[in-house]
C-alpha cells in the first residue's frame, strides 16, 4: 500500500484473498502494510497471482532493499499538516521500490515537526515545515536506536526526490554490506556525506542520475515473476507426495 495509503477497493481485494486462502492472521504492520500470515508454501503462487492482478506489488520485506515509506496524513486531512506528506511519501516509494541496498532502508514523511510518521528514526526521514521540507538521515529504530542527523532543507518535492535518489545512491556505492545507514554515517561522518550530496551539486545530480538509471532495470517484483512463470510456480509444490 503505497505510502501507507489505500482505498476501499484495495482493502476488499486483500479481504477476498485472505478469506479465499484461509489466512490465519491479518496484521497491520509497523511499515503501514498488511501482513497475511499462516499460509502454506503451496498456496503462494495462487495468492501472489491474485494480488498481482489486483495491482499490488510485493513489499520487499525480506530484502536488503527499500522497505517502506511511512507517512502521516499531512496537510490534506490534519490541521497541523504543513505539506502533502502522503503524496510525497507515495512518490518517494514509487521512485525507490525494488532498489537493492547494503542493508534494509526505511523512510518516512511527517507532515509537521510533531513527526507522527517517526521520520527521525529512519534511514531517510522528511519532516515537512511551512517553508518546505527538512531531510534527515542515518536514523535507526531497531536494536540500537539512533535519531537522524539533519542533512538539508529544501523548498520543493522535486528537490526532496533528488536528495533521496542521491543519498541512496551514495549509500549503495559506499557502505559495506550489512551496514545500516546509522553505523555507516558514524563511520564516514556526516560532514563527508554533506560534502557529497549537499555541497557538491554536480555530484548530487550525478548520483541521482545513476540511481534513476539503475531503477529502470531494478523495479522487478520477484513474486510477480514467479506468479507468471509456470516453471517457477511448480517449484512451490512438493516434488512428490508418498502415500504408502
Amino acid at each position, binding site marked *: 500500500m503505497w505510502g501507507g495509503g489505500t482505498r476501499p477497493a484495495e482493502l476488499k481485494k486483500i479481504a477476498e484473498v485472505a478469506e479465499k486462502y484461509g489466512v490465519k492472521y491479518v496484521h497491520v504492520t509497523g511499515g503501514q502494510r498488511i501482513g497475511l500470515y499462516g499460509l502454506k*508454501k503451496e498456496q503462494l503462487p495462487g495468492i501472489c497471482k491474485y494480488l498481482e492482478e489486483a495491482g499490488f506489488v510485493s513489499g520487499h520485506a525480506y530484502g536488503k532493499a527499500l522497505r517502506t515509506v511511512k507517512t502521516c496524513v499531512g496537510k490534506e486531512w490534519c490541521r497541523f499538516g504543513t505539506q502533502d506528506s502522503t503524496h510525497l511519501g507515495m512518490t518517494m516509494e514509487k521512485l525507490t521500490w525494488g532498489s537493492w541496498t547494503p542493508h534494509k532502508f526505511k523512510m518516512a514523511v511527517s507532515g509537521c515537526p510533531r513527526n507522527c510518521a517517526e521520520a527521525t528514526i529512519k534511514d531517510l526521514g522528511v519532516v515537512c515545515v511551512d517553508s518546505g521540507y527538512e531531510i534527515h538521515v542515518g536514523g535507526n529504530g531497531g536494536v540500537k536506536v539512533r535519531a537522524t542527523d539533519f542533512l538539508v532543507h529544501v523548498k520543493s518535492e522535486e528537490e526532496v526526490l533528488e536528495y533521496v535518489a542521491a543519498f541512496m545512491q551514495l549509500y549503495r556505492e559506499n557502505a559495506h554490506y550489512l551496514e545500516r545507514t546509522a553505523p555507516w554515517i558514524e563511520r564516514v561522518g556526516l560532514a563527508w556525506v554533506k560534502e557529497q550530496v549537499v555541497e557538491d551539486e554536480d555530484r548530487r545530480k550525478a548520483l541521482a542520475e545513476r540511481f534513476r538509471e539503475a531503477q529502470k532495470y531494478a523495479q522487478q517484483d520477484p513474486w510477480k515473476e514467479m506468479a507468471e512463470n509456470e516453471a517457477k510456480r*511448480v*517449484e512451490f509444490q*512438493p*516434488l*512428490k*507426495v*508418498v*502415500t504408502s
Partner: protein
Amino acid sequence: MSNDWIEVGSIDDIPRRGARVVRTAEGDIAVFRTAEDRIFALRDKCPHKGGPLSQGIVHGTKVACPLHDWKIQLDTGEAVAPDEGCAATFPVRLDGQTIYLSVQPDAGCPNRG
C-alpha cells in the same frame, strides 16, 4: 534393512542451490541440489527449532536454516560447530537425470521424524 527406492523426479525439478520437498506420512524430506549438481536428502527439520531446511540457501555442501542460520552439512546431517545436533539423512541416488529416494532414514541420527 532394505531400501525401497522411490522415483521422485528429475534433477531439473530441483533449483540449483535449493531443494524440493518429498512429503511422507512420517514427515517431509528435503532433497537438495548443490551448485555442482550433487543430490542429498535430509529430514526437513532443523535440529535447533524444527525450521524447514528445504527453504534454506545451499552453499557448498551445506545448507543454512532460514530461521536462525544454523549450518547443516548435507552429507552427514550434522550441524556445523559450535552448534550441535543433526537432521536424519536419507539414501538418495541419481540414475542419469532421475532421482531415487528411500524413505527409510540412514542410521546414526536420532532425529528421524
